């Protein structure tokens, strides 16, 4: 694999910025079509099969902080290099609003640590305005994307089940793993609360889809990066295979500053700062594809001002950065007394839950417009930093041989015994919901701040509306219903109106989308229905910036499908000499 950081005189057919889900897929499709491709990655090289990067199958004591999230926000063994804060790469906020921006600086980007939850958007998800009159419809529908979802399923592999649900479409699934013990409790709680609990849909190989990748060996550590390539990450499943074609040059530690344009306003390539020598270099290309992540792509466009694009590239509409939206998130947990003092067995399974609940209600009968799905946590997972804590409030739920409840706090042999008993007895439920995109939620260039490479940074303005707050209130009712339905004792106090019912700060779910949305009207959208810039025909966006609305589904599978669709279109347009 090439890892050069030098300037090149070569003119590529395509330069792709970003090596995550969108950029990786585009690199694979374009390289397979015989085009010459440069892939620009702002972070370092990463391959979970190499020992120097391996965090998989590590025991907690191998980390001096026992897996605490001091350095890596999802824990010391998590695969992500980066987080909500990166030294020397700030972002700012105005008007007292909150937005937390998670970035992974590494080959494959955020696909290295994500939860592998791979949900298609359904027919209604592309036409939300038709449903509730809010926001906008996409210029495309499920039928446009379905063939690509099908291809993504088969190329990458996803387990799940065909349930025939109207807005959670069937696909080409591998068999799911059986539920764990606590997940059978969750199914029971779901039945009582009339909430469907069905097999999870995750891009983890329970069976092989090709000879290039291994199958899951059930260590439950997908977020640490898989040495067998048995789950989806862009580096292992897309960029590496693309490089085998010989058509791809990968530039790592290459922080792209701007997209360069000519007098006609067409893109001519990119200029970037090499992190190894802090010098600026240029890449020339006939076509520019941005897959830097919704916000980073918006930043890049806004920083690419020229006489033909005075408001930033592809920003004649002024919509670049607008309609930024993330999934909603809230959660609650409980202890299940009948799961205390349980028998031990290896129940690692795949990373995360084996079951989930797709949105099950009709919003026309609710006081909020969009739905949410439920994710679950629990089980005999590997103890890590934080394990054994909280006995000052949880020991009361542990009973002794006579059935008497314990007393909170304490010390000694009895405490040690009760921590053994509590292991594997708590269950967490979280909701992940759809928000209504707002023009007034945006990122823009902060005129007063640059990062350590001298590149102007993003400034965020983001507020949840009543739609999301009412949805979170409903989530909290649901959490209580399902947790008590399985015999759980609720932990902590129920979040109330003062905390927006536990609604997390925007950005915390890391599903931010919408900053370069597609549409048929160039005055209200950045991209056309092919994710081609209205104002610059040889510029495309393949990350979630193109999303008109983020469904109550995780965005990765849709990023992959849309990137494939756009890449097919690029191949076609180059053949016809249209771009």
């Amino acid at each position, binding site marked *: 694999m090439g890892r050069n950081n030098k300037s090149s005189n070569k003119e590529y057919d395509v330069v792709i910025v970003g090596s995550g889900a969108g950029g990786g897929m585009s690199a694979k499709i374009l390289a397979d079509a015989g085009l010459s491709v440069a892939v620009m990655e702002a972070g370092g090289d990463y391959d979970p099969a190499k020992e120097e990067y391996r965090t998989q*199958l590590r025991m907690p004591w191998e980390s001096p902080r026992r897996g605490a999230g001091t350095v890596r926000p999802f824990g010391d063994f998590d695969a992500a290099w980066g987080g909500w804060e990166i030294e020397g790469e700030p972002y700012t906020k105005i008007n007292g609003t909150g937005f937390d921006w998670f970035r992974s600086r590494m080959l494959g980007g955020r696909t290295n640590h994500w939860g592998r939850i791979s949900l298609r958007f359904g027919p209604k998800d592309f036409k939300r305005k038709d449903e509730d009159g809010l926001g906008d419809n996409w210029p495309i529908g499920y039928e446009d994307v379905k063939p690509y979802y099908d291809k993504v399923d088969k190329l990458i592999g996803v387990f799940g089940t065909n349930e025939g649900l109207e807005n959670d479409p069937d696909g080409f699934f591998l068999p799911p793993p059986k539920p764990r013990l606590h997940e059978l409790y969750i199914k029971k709680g779901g039945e009582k609360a009339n909430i469907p609990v069905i097999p999870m849909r995750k891009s983890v190989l329970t069976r092989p889809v090709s000879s290039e990748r291994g199958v899951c060996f059930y*260590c439950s550590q997908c977020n640490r990066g898989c040495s067998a390539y048995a789950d989806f990450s862009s580096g292992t499943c897309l960029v590496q295979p693309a490089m085998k074609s010989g058509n791809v040059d990968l530039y790592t530690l290459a922080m792209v500053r701007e997209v360069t344009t000519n007098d006609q306003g067409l893109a001519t390539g990119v200029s970037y700062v090499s992190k190894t020598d802090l010098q600026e270099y240029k890449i020339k290309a006939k076509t520019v594809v941005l897959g830097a992540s919704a916000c980073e792509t918006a930043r890049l466009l806004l920083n690419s001002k020229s006489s033909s694009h005075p408001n930033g590239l592809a920003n004649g509409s002024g919509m670049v950065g607008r309609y930024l939206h993330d999934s909603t998130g809230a959660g609650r947990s409980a202890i299940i007394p009948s799961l205390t003092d349980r028998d031990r067995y290896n129940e690692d399974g795949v990373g995360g839950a084996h079951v989930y609940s797709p949105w099950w209600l009709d919003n026309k009968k609710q006081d909020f417009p969009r739905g949410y799905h439920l994710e679950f946590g629990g089980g005999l997972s590997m103890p890590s930093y934080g394990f054994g804590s909280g006995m000052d409030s949880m020991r009361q739920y542990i009973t002794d041989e006579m059935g008497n409840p314990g007393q909170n706090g304490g010390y000694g042999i009895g405490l040690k015994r009760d921590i053994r008993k509590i292991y594997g007895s708590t269950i967490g439920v979280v909701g992940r919901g759809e928000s209504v995109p707002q023009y007034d939620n945006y990122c823009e260039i902060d005129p007063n701040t640059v990062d350590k490479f001298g590149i102007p940074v993003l400034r965020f303005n983001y507020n949840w509306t009543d739609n999301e707050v009412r949805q979170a209130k409903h989530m909290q009712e649901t959490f209580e219903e399902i947790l008590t339905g399985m015999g759980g004792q609720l932990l902590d106090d129920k979040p109330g109106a003062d905390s927006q019912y536990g609604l997390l700060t925007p950005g915390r779910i890391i599903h931010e989308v919408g900053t370069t949305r597609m549409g048929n009207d160039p005055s209200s959208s950045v991209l056309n229905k092919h994710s081609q810039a209205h104002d610059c025909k040889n510029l495309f966006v393949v990350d979630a910036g193109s999303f008109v609305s983020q469904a109550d589904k995780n965005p990765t599978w849709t990023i992959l499908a849309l990137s494939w669709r756009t890449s097919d279109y690029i191949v076609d347009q180059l053949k016809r000499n249209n771009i």
Partner: protein
Amino acid sequence: MDRREHLKLLLAGSVGAGLFVSTSCSEADRAESEEIIAQNTYGRTPEEIDLNEKLNAETFFTGPERKAVEVLCDIIIPADDTSGSATDAGVPDFMEFMMKDVPSMQVPTRGGLMWLDNLSKKRFGKTFVAGTASKRLSVIDEIAWPEKAEPEVGYGVRFFNSMRNLTATGYFTSEMGLKDLGYLGNQPNVWDGVPDEILEKHGLAYDQKTLDECIKPEDRNRLAEWDEKGNLVS
């Protein structure tokens, strides 16, 4: 050559004959860098290796503080028939590291240890560590039970809660603690559901739909193929 730069190059896999020619890197430098990497064998970036090294090189607890921490740890998690104590499992070293890793813990912990000495002097005229085992336990009993504790020892309750949390976490994430807990995961295996006898104990069973649709161990190496409707055909 700057050690950090050297580490970066080594970790980037770009080390080779060229490095020695083009830089001032000596064989000794190289050996040192390789040693540092070997001690940080859990997938660290160069920056993270640097940070762990830096934290390990510092000492937070004074001698008397360290002694008090050891005594507290073993009150919280003593040895029993199953396993050793918190100090047997190296918990004080873990606490020492966490104090430096999370600096916001430093003042409450140092202050808590002094607070405990103060209370001990009031109650039995000596520092906490200088007291007999039963004297030590008598002051611990004042702060170890949040719901029974007097309001005037509120800070002590908070301090002991945090010592309990850190000790429990440090112990049960150690090799000894995982063995004690009976943790059986973190190894390649084939998941085929909850063992029957455990299902039975909980009055649960897999329904037929689940048994039909879930992965069967004998199929796990068979290449997946589907018909046009998405049904697996092999």
